[in-house]
């Protein structure tokens, strides 16, 4: 049997990589958008764009941050294009989303709701760090912030979650 053409092999490997990372892309999109339908749409558009730009990905180990960056931009684009309204935290439909409680682990539901209620400026760097595996320097570059500002935002994000986890909030940093 003739070996598969190199182009096919590379495309297949890329496909597999996308397949493996798709669950985390969906999660990232969900935590960004706080809406399942929007998250699913953003992921689809991300996959299309990634597929078209696949030649730009030189190192498979960098696939995750590369895809997360694409997804973040697609998410922003969607809001620009569709002029989706911003939602008041207290009216977030996602707080009642059954997906939040679907694994039934005690305490996780409260934590998930608390993450959803974090302001965008705190939630986004936290999700980039925890799910995306971005360093603070990478987050700073991605969000066009100083590294000190990223540290402060991450600190404050976790500080808000400490109380939900049953810990005393730490003294704020300035």
């Amino acid at each position, binding site marked *: 049997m003739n070996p598969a053409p190199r182009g096919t092999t590379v495309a297949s490997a890329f496909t597999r990589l996308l397949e493996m990372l798709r669950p985390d892309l969906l999660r990232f999109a969900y935590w960004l958008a706080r809406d399942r339908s929007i998250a699913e*749409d953003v992921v689809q558009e991300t996959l299309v764009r990634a597929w078209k730009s696949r030649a730009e990905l030189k190192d498979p180990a960098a696939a995750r941050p590369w895809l997360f960056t694409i997804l973040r931009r697609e998410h922003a684009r969607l809001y620009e294009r569709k002029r989706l309204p911003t939602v008041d935290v207290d009216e977030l439909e996602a707080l009642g989303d059954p997906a939040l409680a679907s694994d039934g682990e005690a305490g996780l539901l409260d934590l998930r709701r608390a993450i959803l209620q974090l302001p965008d400026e705190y939630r986004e760097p936290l999700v980039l760090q925890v799910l995306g595996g971005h360093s603070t320097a990478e987050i700073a570059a991605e969000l066009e912030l100083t590294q000190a500002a990223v540290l402060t935002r991450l600190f404050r994000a976790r500080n808000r979650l400490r109380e939900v986890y049953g810990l005393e909030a730490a003294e704020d940093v300035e």
Partner: protein
Amino acid sequence: MSGVIPDCRHARLHIGADPQHLPADVRAHVSGCEGCRHFLDESLGLDARVRRAMELPLGQFRATGSATARAPRRLALAASVVLALMIGGGFWFLQATPALAGEIAEHVMHEAGSWDRQEPLSAAAVGEVLRQAGVQFDSSFPVVYASACPFRGRRIPHLVVQTPEGPLTVMLLAHETVAAPREFSEQGLSGMLLPAGSGGVAVLARAGEVPGDLAGRIVSGVRW
């Protein structure tokens, strides 16, 4: 920051922001400050929970693109993705997700030479691999092979440890959820997938089964 001893406020900013990756000066401060050490332990516990919380189960999500009438363009895009992926040979949505165990075995088979290493590596060499992957591992056994390997879009430590029962491959999977221990046999290799905090550890034997007690000792040395 070099040359300046950080105070508790500075240390806690770093711990609160990124407890997994502390600068050397903050680590030095923590080692001598009980309050900050306690804060770090708390923060690491919280971090593991936050990771679990963010790793939302996806059972409630649709398998493919939008099926609503409000977004026909996205349906077209979804169709184009499926088509492109099928052309690429992936059959994305038609195939079951490859099992983690199978991918691990396949990866190990690609680095089969790792089994033949006998010379223990220095702590610095192992530490560098762990640092690249952002994990900690205090091995009970000499590490004779260590590589930060690309796996599922991340760098993970791929190690071989020499045990009294022979070499065992250890892969530290900080970002894979392993709900319960399970044995597997793939590509002629026997292995175990074990939960470890918010992640998992794969232990594989070159021949025969992985001794459960050794696997347990290995997992006890892992810290994310």
